[in-house]
């Protein structure tokens, strides 16, 4: 079982990300959960959402405290919230940022596995808005191998209809542009 924690801000679509990832998992015949950090939601405030993806039915109903993967949708959260909290020692941190890796590592005092991509830039170009939730799924798929890239096609088409191709382009670019650093 793989556990993923997503950091974003209210309104940036972290919950949509976990839903799409869960949908892609069941496309592959796997099992999945997606849930927000429980409580009131506030636009703009730091929020978290979570995924579990497993080959077997998932019995666990409690929260995720030691994720395998942490995804940061909003660059401004780095240094503001403790994004590496509980991340497994061999876990992976995937960050949307335009900054060099060293700057991120110094700020977070983090020496583990790190991947970066400028997803906000990609989202602005491909979608016309600086909302990086679908874009970052591409980065997660490339760096984790949780799920196949194609498994996202159907969920994205169903969710976004006529603008699905824009989201797919953004996701594909992040898939190609993300770098382990």
């Amino acid at each position: 079982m793989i556990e993923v924690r997503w950091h974003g801000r209210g309104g940036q679509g972290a919950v949509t990300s976990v839903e799409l990832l869960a949908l892609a998992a069941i496309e592959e015949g796997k099992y999945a959960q997606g849930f927000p950090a429980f409580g009131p939601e506030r636009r703009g405030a730091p929020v978290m959402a979570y995924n579990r993806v497993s080959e077997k039915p998932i019995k666990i109903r409690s929260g995720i405290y030691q994720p395998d993967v942490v995804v940061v949708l909003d660059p401004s959260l780095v240094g503001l919230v403790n994004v590496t909290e509980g991340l497994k020692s061999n876990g992976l941190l995937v960050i949307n940022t335009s900054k060099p890796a060293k700057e991120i590592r110094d700020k977070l005092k983090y020496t583990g596995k790190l991947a970066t991509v400028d997803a906000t830039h990609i989202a602005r170009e491909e979608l016309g808005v600086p909302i990086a939730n679908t874009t970052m799924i591409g980065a997660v798929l490339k760096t984790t191998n949780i799920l196949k890239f194609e498994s996202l096609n159907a969920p994205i088409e169903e969710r976004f209809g006529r603008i699905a191709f824009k989201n797919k382009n953004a996701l594909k670019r992040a898939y190609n542009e993300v770098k382990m650093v």
Partner: protein
Amino acid sequence: MSNVQIMTGNQAAALGAKLCNVEVVAAYPITPQSQLSEILSQYVESGELKAEYVRVEGEHSALTVCISASTVGARVFTATSANGLLYMHEQLHWAAGSRLPIVMCCVNRGVGAPWTIFNDQQDSLAQRDTGWMQIYCRNNQEILDTVIQAYRIAEAVYCPVMVCYDGFVLSHTMMPVDIPDAADVKAFLPPYKPHTILSPDDPRNLNPVLFPGQRRDSEGVLRDGYMEMRYKLQAALDKAPETIRSANTAFAEAFGRNHGGMLWEYHANDADLIIVGMGSLASEATAAADILRAEGIKAGVVGIRVYRPFPKEDVRDVFRNAKAVVIFEKSISYGYEGGLCSDLKAAFYGTNIKAPIHGYIAGLGGRDVKARELVAAAKDSLASFDRGMVEPKTTWLSTFTG
């Protein structure tokens, strides 16, 4: 053909009500139920569900609308949480006393004061004695399927059913749900045909003040007194387990999913230690049992699915070889212990089940209940049983105060 989608517990409940072709919905939004009433109003607005959605000023009225609509023969649905359910309390008794097959979802949430919006099961447990049947769900598939079964049960027993599922833990968590085909649901649950309805063609005075004893009515017919009427409610619930088990069996045959009838078990057969719970906690307990087994402790789980009517025969059977029992409950009867703990002990009275029983109160007000905590607690209990402790004091899990 399966049609698996990812959805929250609230979405699954709404879909269940839609598949049952409910005719009247009256609900008042309250966290964590709100999404459920919102989706149902969208279904009605879009015409996907041919029902009347009655907007009301509070939960007492929501259930009153359901009582009225059910009395004139409609299949009705409502849902609430926590203090909303408490506000319905008077009408809960009225619905059951009127023998109306209403189905309600209780999206379990702790009650104030102090305020919490988060999950425990104090709200529905506090309604134990209202005459409603209560069914607890462990995942979102079970929510959808149980709503469908609940109408079949309610309309056979002529008693209302509360489908209980944990707020946020299920209501706001997306999980895979296989959506049954509408035609298959209709075959399992034909349209509601009430045996009596209130109609202008046959005006009646329902639920008048009854005298303590039996009395002849204006037509000279000997009618039940209050106590006879109440006895019939109890008699109906005493017999209801047969209906609940057969609805579960018929559902399993039609849809290939067996949720266990009155209760479900997980490796309980050869277990030395049985962990007991209701709802999502019981699912977490199966993960705890796996950990315990890996450590060499033969653990199993019994999930109490139906809390009222209480599965007395079923627990006597499933616990017959139990050597130790630990119970985790998300509610308490203040001044005594967890209600499930009391009920289980009572069910074992007079039998050969002499296993020591340790009751825990867990997860109140949304405190997360983790498998590893259940494992640690179960080991503590086993150690105290080994030291000869027969009836340990109720323990509050992970609670630290002076």
